[in-house]
């Protein structure tokens, strides 16, 4: 890329989301398949500088018009207060904070100190807190470095310093976990009264520590039947507690859905900066290199940090639309679909639609085609049948 290139008429990408990736954490979790590292904190200063350079490239070449910002990781709050200040002031010097409807940062309980809680309050309006479970033996199993009391302490600090929109991440399907324990977690989380709860099934990826253990037969996850039960029961308890489901793994109080994430599933356009960050705009998808040092090096030399790019063809656009929309409780809107693809979803796929509605895995009515909770659990199967 050429940072100095400047055009008279800057194209204005419809991109509404800005994602900033912070690939540092205090201790890598054995199930984590995101790009994050616990052994390179010394790269953080140069890294922030590099990602701000990448953002400047966008600023110089495009008319930026973001309405959400999401700082994810890794653990963004693993950065020092000073680094966080530098990061935020850098970002806000380039993008208009006033237009932002939602600014989220991810945090882990052990990193939320009084001083950081103050920094966050000053710079964001939403915090996503990774707590996973309130049971000490399961926290150990997940190799988390915080205990349950740290979750309460972090939550209290965030509230004390004024964070009004908080998400709690909960995980289910941990080795040895019972459905009762999963429900207990939900109740404890709901008792804190956060605005949003993400309720994830533990997924084991090949190249992670858990992947290795599973291969060696050293990790035994609950049976599929139990996972199904945990999900269905968990979703029910969440809804009873006032958290309405809007996506496979996401629940919120009314009006508190994560706007930034909703844009991914629309599917809308977004810009990602930082190592491994992905962007989607102008009919293409890009993904930056994972390697942090290499990312810094490329930005220093004004070369393109993207590792892969993919032109979105009409075929992939269709697949993406179906794949992403079916993650949403709202499902596929027939009008939006027709506007975008110029054919009728219902008549084209009537066989598939009736197959899944008959099985109770989907609903199809005037609001559109959408999956039931059981359907969500089998969503990969259902989506494939449209491919």
């Amino acid at each position, binding site marked *: 890329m050429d940072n100095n290139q400047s055009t008279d008429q800057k194209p204005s990408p419809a991109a509404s989301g800005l994602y900033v990736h912070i690939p540092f954490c205090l201790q890598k979790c054995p199930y984590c398949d995101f790009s994050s590292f616990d052994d390179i904190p010394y790269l953080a200063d140069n890294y922030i500088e590099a990602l701000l350079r990448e953002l400047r490239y966008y600023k110089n070449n495009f008319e930026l018009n973001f309405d959400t910002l999401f700082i994810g990781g890794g653990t963004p709050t693993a950065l020092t207060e000073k680094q966080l200040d530098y990061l935020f002031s850098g970002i806000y010097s380039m993008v208009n904070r006033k237009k932002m409807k939602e600014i989220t940062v991810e945090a882990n309980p052990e990193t939320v100190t009084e001083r950081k809680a103050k920094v966050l309050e000053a710079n964001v309006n939403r915090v996503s807190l990774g707590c996973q479970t309130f049971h000490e033996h399961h926290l150990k199993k997940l190799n988390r470095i915080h205990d349950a009391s740290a979750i309460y302490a972090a939550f209290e600090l965030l509230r004390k310093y004024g964070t009004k929109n908080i998400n709690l991440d909960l995980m289910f399907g941990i080795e040895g976990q019972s459905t009762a324990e999963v429900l207990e977690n939900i109740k404890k989380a709901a008792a804190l009264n956060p605005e949003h709860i993400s309720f994830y099934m533990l*997924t084991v990826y090949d190249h992670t520590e858990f992947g290795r253990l599973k291969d060696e037969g050293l990790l035994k996850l609950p049976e599929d039947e139990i996972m199904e039960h945990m999900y269905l029961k968990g979703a029910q308890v969440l809804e009873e507690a006032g958290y309405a489901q809007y996506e496979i*793994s996401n629940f919120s109080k009314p009006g508190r859905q994560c706007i930034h994430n909703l844009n*991914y599933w629309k599917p809308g356009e977004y810009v990602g900066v930082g190592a491994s960050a*992905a962007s989607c705009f102008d009919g293409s998808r890009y993904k930056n290199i994972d390697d942090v040092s290499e990312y810094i090096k490329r930005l220093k030399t004004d070369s393109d940090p993207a590792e892969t790019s993919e032109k979105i063809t009409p075929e992939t656009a269709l697949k*993406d639309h179906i*794949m992403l929309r079916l993650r949403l409780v709202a499902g596929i809107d027939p009008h939006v679909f027709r506007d975008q693809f110029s054919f009728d979803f219902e008549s084209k796929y009537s066989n598939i639609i009736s197959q899944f509605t008959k099985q109770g895995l989907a609903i199809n009515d005037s609001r559109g085609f959408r999956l039931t909770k059981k359907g969500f659990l*089998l969503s*990969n199967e259902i989506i494939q049948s449209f491919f």
Partner: protein
Amino acid sequence: MDNSYMQKIRNFSIIAHIDHGKSTLADRLLEHTGTIDKRKMKEQVLDSMDLERERGITIKAKAVAIKYKYNGEEYSLNLIDTPGHVDFTYEVSRSLIASEGALLVIDASQGIEAQTMANAHIAMNSNLLLIPVINKIDLPNADPENAIREMEELLALPGEDAIRASAKEGIGTEEILRAIVERIPAPNGDVNKPLKALVMDAQFDFYKGVITFVRIVDGYIKPGMKILMMASNTKWDVDNIGIFKPGMVETDILRAGEVGYIVAGIKSLSDIKIGDTVTDNTNPCDRALPGYKEVKPMVFCGLFPVVSEQYTELKDALMKLKLNDSSLFFEPESSEALGFGYRCGFLGLLHMEIIQERLEREYNLNLIATAPNVEYKVVSTKGETTICDAPASFPDFSYIDHIEEPYVKLNLITPSEFLGALMQLCQSRRGVYVTTEYIMGNRALLTYEMPLAEIIWDFYDKLKSISRGYASMDYELMDYRTSDLKKVDILVNHEKVDSLSFITHEQFAYNRAKLLVEKLKEVIPRQMFVVPIQGAIGASIISRETIPAMRKNVLAKCYGGDITRKRKLLEKQKEGKKRMKAIGSVEIPQEAFLAILKVD
């Protein structure tokens, strides 16, 4: 014409077990006599197909003329190559009777194997002179003395005749060549009698058509002659003739005692019958050579393309293979489960494996092979006999009076420590015990009469695993015997999957049905609904398993960075399903059709 030229001809074969060093020895003989330049030599000249080279076996016999100087005089030594596997016994026998003698190659560390013994017996019955060669004496674990003792005991060959050699190191090569001249008798035909020649083998060449390998017994053959194939009763005009040196070299005449090839405008290998007698159409010999047999397939299976679009390709590939393998048999077959394919017949299990592998490797076909079968004689209540080589072709059992199945005589040679376990194996496969003979060197020859069906069902692998690879086997067809056989059907989601049906003895039916159904439960992935798998004899269900419905296949997280990767993951899952066969609404992986072979 004078017959004295025959005094300078020696025709010989090499008998050896797979891996005992036949091809290497042949290479050394060619190299030592300058028949072939060492530098130009592709290792193991006689094995031309890669696949054979990989498996260390030779399928097609060829003959190579070797010039060898002995006491100042030049001799023609014709090396007649023989196939090295149990499935090709008949072809071996035709090669052997074309020779006057044979090198009997025995691995100094392994001793005599069942198949070597079987071939040695064929050679002896054809009055061939055997020159024992104890090979691989250079190996650290070689025990030539023991190999010689085994030879004396099992084959009654005098130990002092044995030549110690290492084909790899070139030890004993000269001694072997001298022994060939000194010990093997010259041919004793008469060039003045009417033409009488043995068809040893044939190969198809794209440009020349069929090349027939012959051993001239009496008379001579020249280009332009009209020949008569006595068994098939067909006539052909000889275009050209020649010998292998080892490349094809045209000659003017092939005389009694000589070995060579004939090109006679024959278009298809199916016009040539191995073991047939070639004679002069205008001046025929009085009698054909003895021992001719129709080659008949013994083992059958269905071959189906995984994607139906490959049906035509499969047909073309089979036709091409048949060009050079007249023992391969095939006819169209259609299966409800697997669509259109071919019912194929093979000489034996190895032959079947080779063909399948060549189809997949050389012709890039993705195939499903059904469980192998033998040919049954099904006698109806009205007394009519039908030949059935597939479970699907069996009539309704209520119309069957009885079923006969082929029995073979099975010889096993094994270190005696495995004797008990092997006897148990044979017994468990309905074997009828005949004898045990103990051989010096702590080995035994075990003989059983056994249904061929039991041997093609995973027997060889079992034999090898029980004996840690040391036991060897050989079998020959004996007769057909009446057995209490049942047809077991497999139902997946209440639909009969015809390609999973199998014929088995009544005593195994329940157990095999149970095991197969269990195995299928393991290999068929969960579907979106509950899938029962049942084993049935007629209308009665004899075993049942249930595959529970799939409960989850979901990506818990999918955010901005994941979209391309997750779309590709789903595309891959979808591709995987395309490679499965959909039976009704159930997707069955190829593995399921192989599961039947692993049930015992």
